């Protein structure tokens, strides 16, 4: 580290700029990672945070609630195969407040039996019962308050908010939990069917189900409309950022190495081993990368605290740590090409004043 530390100190600007670039890339990766996690949660929190371990859907529904219908009798038959099972109907809709009729809000109805294991846990107000509905915290952003009444745009039925649960969302829209009774008033034509059965399974054995499939929570989330495409593009961006950073850093370090070829020849002639030079180079890169990554981590952690609710952003300490580690490794790996170059420098080039 003798050379590394002194070189870093002497060429502060050069290494500062490289640090800045690494910082920007790491920051971008962490930012997109946080956004991806935020969007994922925004897309399926009502499913991923539900105590249900899986769902029984109609055969051929392709793991989508919107394509699944089970008759109530069928649902009851299927329910017997599980220790715990309760019917669930999901449907997207639009609501509006009486005094602000022009402003409609998209949301998703979750029809759940009051007291069932998938009934929402209220953070404020009452738990779900026949007197009203429990809604996602997210609706607060649209001005909905406890005790307020609102209208289902399609049926015109009025519902009262009796409780708020956490930021439950489905396909980026807030969830409104209603009881089967209320649902029947809104959808009188759909009294005999439900979308699916939410089950809680403790065993790993798959029961045989006629005309239906047991689908895991993960598979459901993957098939929430828009989820896969969204996460896929974000993952792609992150993968590209990694590739870009390897290439950019490799080029940077290579250029720095090329500039130092003559100096490396002299150092070798003076009796410096190639392994010492390799450690010098890796040490230098390691310090620059570590510094950049630590600053990026701090900025992202701070940013996570101040992101507006409209921009879902979730990042855990563990993800920050893993990403940081990958980056330091990537930075060091990008030096490999340069190390090959250094190994090839002939110490004899120091003699004869070549080049000048």
């Amino acid at each position, binding site marked *: 580290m*003798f*050379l590394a530390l*002194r070189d870093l100190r002497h060429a502060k600007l050069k290494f500062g700029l490289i640090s800045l670039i690494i910082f920007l890339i790491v920051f971008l990766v962490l930012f997109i990672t946080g956004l991806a996690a935020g969007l994922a949660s925004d897309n399926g929190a009502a499913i991923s945070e539900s105590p249900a371990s899986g769902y029984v859907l109609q055969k051929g529904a392709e793991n989508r609630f919107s394509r699944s219908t089970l008759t109530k009798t069928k649902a009851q038959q299927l329910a017997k195969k599980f220790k715990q099972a309760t019917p669930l109907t999901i449907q997207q809709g639009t609501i509006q407040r009486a005094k602000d009729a022009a402003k409609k809000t998209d949301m998703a109805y979750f029809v759940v039996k009051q007291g069932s294991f998938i009934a929402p846990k209220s953070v404020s107000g009452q738990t779900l019962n026949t007197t009203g509905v429990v809604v996602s915290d997210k609706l607060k952003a649209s001005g909905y308050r406890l005790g307020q009444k609102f209208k289902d745009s399609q049926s015109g039925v009025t519902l009262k908010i009796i409780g708020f649960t956490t930021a439950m969302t489905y396909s980026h829209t807030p969830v409104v939990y209603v009881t089967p009774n209320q649902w029947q008033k809104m959808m009188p034509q759909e009294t005999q069917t439900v979308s699916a059965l939410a089950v809680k399974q403790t065993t790993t054995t798959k029961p045989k189900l006629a005309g239906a499939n047991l689908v895991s929570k993960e598979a459901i989330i993957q098939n929430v409309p828009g989820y896969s495409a969204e996460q896929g593009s974000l993952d792609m961006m992150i993968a590209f950022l990694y590739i870009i950073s390897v290439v950019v850093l490799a080029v940077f370090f290579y250029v720095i190495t090329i500039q130092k070829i003559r100096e490396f020849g002299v150092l070798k002639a003076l009796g410096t081993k190639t392994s010492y030079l390799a450690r010098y180079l890796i040490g230098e890169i390691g310090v620059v990368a570590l510094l950049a990554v630590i600053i990026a981590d701090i900025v992202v952690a701070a940013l996570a605290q101040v992101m507006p609710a409209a921009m879902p952003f979730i990042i855990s300490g563990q993800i920050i740590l893993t990403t940081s580690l990958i980056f330091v490794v990537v930075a060091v790996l990008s030096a490999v090409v340069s190390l090959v170059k250094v190994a090839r420098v002939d110490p004899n080039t120091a003699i004869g004043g070549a080049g000048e």
Partner: protein
Amino acid sequence: MTETLKLTNVVKYYQDGDARIEVLREVSLAVKPGEFAAVVGPSGAGKSTFLSIAGALLRPSEGQVYLAGQEITQLSQKQWTKIRLEQIGFIFQNSELIPYLTVMDQLRYMSVLAKRKGQEQRAQDLLTHLELANRLQQYPAALSGGERQRVAIARALMNDPQLILADEPTASLDSKRGREVVTMLRDEVHANHKAAVMVTHDERVLDLVDTVYQIEDGVLKKKD
């Protein structure tokens, strides 16, 4: 007494297709401790090639190289690196100081490489002796050509090598500064009982050395 540097019948040639370019022909020479030798000759005569072979940087095609009685001709690159570090002090044409090391650090680096501790005082003494005491914390960019070459001399002496090899140390200096540098080098060589070989173009400094060799077309001859 064993010679510090001894070359016997050293031949160096390069193969160019069918033709064989002979750069050094049957070069023999011996330099004793305390002896300051100079090798002069026209451009392309083989001076740099000779110095590289003497300095464990280039393998001769034929012949042997001995350093303090030990034959080093066929040692591995790794062993050569160690020998260069511990037994040879190099002074290069353009001083070749490391740009991001202060004058003191240039010398410290040599001790770090050789894993020798407690060399601070030695570094300071060397630099004081070479009239660089007030330049210790300067970077090479802030030094004059003559000062840089003096730092290079101190660096070459730092690990107390038996042999000093200087490659045209006055090439980038005016004649007055060149003479000063060579005088200092001579004094260090004599005072510390080192063997030194200096390759040079500069005929005006030859009165300062003990032995002069003339090289022409790869043939080395002692000049009286």
